[in-house]
Structures are given as structure tokens and as C-alpha cells.
């Protein structure tokens, strides 16, 4: 089968990451299909978050971190090359963190900040539209429309996380990286975020690190299992959770690890 260059949002090849002398990622090659949700799973310290952070160069700020290998956005743009600025890259590849981290500003300002600094709106009306659309897509608009000027930190944990998702999508990224976005949330807020991830998939490629195997099985089409910095297995989620090819994967997802 001829592989379509454009069918992958991100292609990576022979990726290795070191923190000083310590190897965190060992020769990983994996491609992320557009409009799929891919879960990265594995025990603590397996390298899944390190790998995720490589995808939009979040590791650049760590002096001891050395990233090697090939990272291609849409099959062509070298993520670590000179042809793309980090700011531009992060417009295209947004990120949502484990703990909701709204700015200590109003709900409106939180979402409007990105479009403003990236020059995505030329008038206040356009900016209003982007903010409203982003909050809508994040499933938060109806809950906050009457208090857009309230401080964002006053929202519940689940609402704050959806606000962070709205903030991420306001700058119109192609890919959203999520690092355990539900680990600080209760089951209802988690369910709401999971529903949102499923809806967002229509427009975005989502790569999510999760410790919850049941979450990975519920929300993702593809799952990648990491262990000790290596990619052990990557495939359709339904296959990984019913008949994985590797015994190590089976042992991990059935709780026989360690």
C-alpha cells in the first residue's frame, strides 16, 4: 500500500532522548495518523511524557535534555529544523497539561490571549467570535457566557481544564498534546473531557498521555505502549486491549507488571 504523506500529522523516526547521560527515550519510531486520538501508555518513568513533550519542543528549555531523531510535521516540516520557529510550531501543536493552569485573568482574557499575540484577529468583533467559538468547542460556553469577566481561577477544576482546552484551540492548532489532562479531575469532569476529546477529534489530531488504561481504551483509536524508554507496541486500541502482539504489553495492561 502506498503511504500517503499527508495521512500522518506527525511522523517520527529513530528518536532518542537523553537527560545528561541518562537515556529517557531509546530509538523510537512512530507515526500519528491525522484526526486520530492516540494514547501513550506505560508505567511511570517509561518516557511517554518525555516523548510527548518532544513533539512541540517543550524539552528545549531543559538544558541537559538532548533530542535526536527525525520529527516531521505533516510529513514535510522538520519540527527541529530552522524553517519553523518554536512559536509558530506551538501554534500548530498546542498542549494541555496535567493540572489546569489558567492565567490569573478573566475567562475571556484566558482564551483571547493566544489569538491576540498571534495576530489571529484584526478587530474586537473577530476576537469575540474566536473566544466564543473556542469556548463552544470546548463545551464551556453555556456555563460561562454570563460571567466572561470573572477570574478564571474561580472555575471548578473540570471547567478550568476545559478552559485550557479552549485556550489551546483558540490559536487554531492542528494537533493537541495532552499530558494526563484528567488526573486532577473527578469522574464527572473526566467524563466531560473525554466526551470533548471525542468531539475534537473531528478537527484535530490528539496525542494524550494517560495513566488510566480504561481511559485509553475509551477515547483513543490508537495506543502506544512505552517501557523503559522503548516503544514496545503501537496499534489499534481495540487490538492492543484484546490481543496485543507482545507479551510485555499483555502483562502491563492486565496488571502483571513488575
Amino acid at each position, binding site marked *: 500500500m502506498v503511504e500517503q504523506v499527508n495521512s500522518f500529522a506527525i511522523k517520527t523516526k529513530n528518536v532518542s532522548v537523553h537527560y545528561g547521560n541518562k537515556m529517557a527515550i531509546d530509538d523510537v519510531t512512530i507515526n500519528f495518523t491525522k484526526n486520530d486520538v492516540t494514547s501513550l501508555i506505560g508505567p511511570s518513568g517509561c518516557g511517554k511524557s518525555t516523548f510527548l513533550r518532544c513533539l512541540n519542543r517543550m524539552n528545549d528549555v531543559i538544558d541537559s535534555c538532548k533530542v535526536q531523531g527525525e520529527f516531521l510535521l505533516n510529513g514535510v516540516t522538520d519540527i527541529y529544523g530552522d524553517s519553523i520557529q518554536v512559536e509558530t510550531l506551538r501554534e500548530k501543536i498546542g498542549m494541555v497539561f496535567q493540572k489546569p493552569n489558567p492565567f490569573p485573568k478573566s475567562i475571556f482574557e484566558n482564551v483571547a490571549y493566544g489569538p491576540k499575540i498571534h495576530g489571529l484577529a484584526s478587530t474586537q468583533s473577530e476576537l469575540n467570535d474566536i473566544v466564543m467559538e473556542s469556548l463552544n468547542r470546548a463545551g464551556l460556553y453555556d456555563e460561562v457566557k454570563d460571567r466572561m469577566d470573572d477570574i478564571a481561577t474561580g472555575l471548578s477544576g473540570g471547567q478550568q481544564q476545559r478552559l485550557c482546552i479552549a485556550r489551546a484551540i483558540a490559536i487554531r492548532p492542528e494537533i493537541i498534546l495532552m499530558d494526563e489532562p484528567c488526573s486532577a479531575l473527578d469522574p464527572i469532569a473526566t467524563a466531560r473531557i473525554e466526551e470533548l476529546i471525542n468531539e475534537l477529534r473531528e478537527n484535530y489530531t490528539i496525542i494524550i498521555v494517560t495513566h488510566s488504561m480504561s481511559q485509553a481504551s475509551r477515547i483513543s483509536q490508537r495506543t502506544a505502549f512505552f517501557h523503559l524508554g522503548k516503544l514496545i507496541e503501537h496499534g489499534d486500541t481495540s487490538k492492543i486491549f*484484546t490481543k496485543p502482539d507482545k507479551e510485555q504489553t499483555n502483562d502491563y495492561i492486565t496488571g502483571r507488571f513488575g
Partner: protein
Amino acid sequence: MENTHTDKNFEQKLKQLQDDLIKMSEIVEKQIEIAVNVIKTKDSQDAQLTQNLDEQVDVAERDVRDLSFEIMTLHRPVASDLRLVFTALKVSKELERMGDHSRNLAKRAISISSSFDDELIEQMYSLGKNVQSMVNQVLDSFFKKDELKAKTSWNQDAEIDKEYKSLLKNLIERMHNKETSVVDEGTKPILIAKSLERIGDHATNIAEEVIFNITGHYIDLKKSDFE
């Protein structure tokens, strides 16, 4: 050796599930053995014993079902654990049907006329012994996770079917040549042979489940060496 679960409670329940299935299998194997012997002995007490054992089999099947349900609800098994639970449910159902057939064939065997053709009795007994051997083998393959053995017993069903058809042909030919009363008598051996053939089919189904449990794939259902 297979790694143990980090969740000891889950581990314990999976072990219990296998133990329950072993217990159920032992009862059904005993039931089949007794029923096959009744073809020759026509011992009514033994036939009654298969009836009593059938009640135990029904209880054992409910135990497997309840425990499987509990495991799925409380532990949400995946991958090899999920396959084991599904296999346990399906195997227990097959065993329960085998038990029913054993009980029925024993009940019919005691009412066959003592003057009935010895050669046909011998042929039925031989079919019964082969079915019994197939059942033993397939259950052994399940508990030892032996894919090759499961495939071997799966292939054995073709032989069982041939033997059944040959017995049927023999019976029909003899009925054609005899009086109407013999035709009436002949329906019992036909039903006994059919019960044995069905037990073989259930054993084949178990072999398929065993292969699925081990590999995650179902066996290719084409029987190239059959018919």
C-alpha cells in the same frame, strides 16, 4: 511461568474461575464415561447417576457464570484475562450441553432391547469411547493452554462424524431389511448415536475457544479433510 497479577484479589478470582471449570469438566467427563458404559451394561443405577451428575453440572455452570460476571464488573479484564473470562463462559455452556446429551443417551441406552444386535452396540460403544477420548483431550488442551493439542482434537471431530455416519447407515440398512417393530427399536440407537455426535461437536467448539484463548484468533473453519 506466567507472571502473576499485581492485584492479588483479581488473581485469586481468575484462579477460582479456572478451578471451577476444572471441577465442572471433571463432572462432565465422569458423566460421559458412565453414559458410554451404560450402552453396554444397561445399568439403570448408572443411568440415574448421570441424571444426578447433571444437576451438579447445572450448578457448576451457574457458578462459572456468576464469577465471570463478577470479574467483568469489578475488575474489567482486558487482553488475555478478558479472553479467559469469555472462554470460560463459552466452555461452561458447551460442557453443560455435553452433560445434557450424556444424561439423555444413558436414559435411552437402558431401554434398548437386550436382543438388539451386538455388532451395533459395539459400534455405538466404540463411537462413545472415541468421543470420550476427544473430550478428555480437548479439556486437557484448555487447562494446559496447549494449542497443538486443541487443534488435534478439533481435527478428531471429522473422524467422529465419519464413524457416526457409518453407524447411521448401518442402522438404516438393517431397518430397511427388517420388520416395522425393529424400525421402532432402531430410533433409540439413532438418538444415542446423535447424542454422541453432538458431544463431539461441543468438544470441537471448545477446541475453537481454546485456540482463541491462547492466540486471540479463531481457527480457520474449513475442514479440508472432512467430506
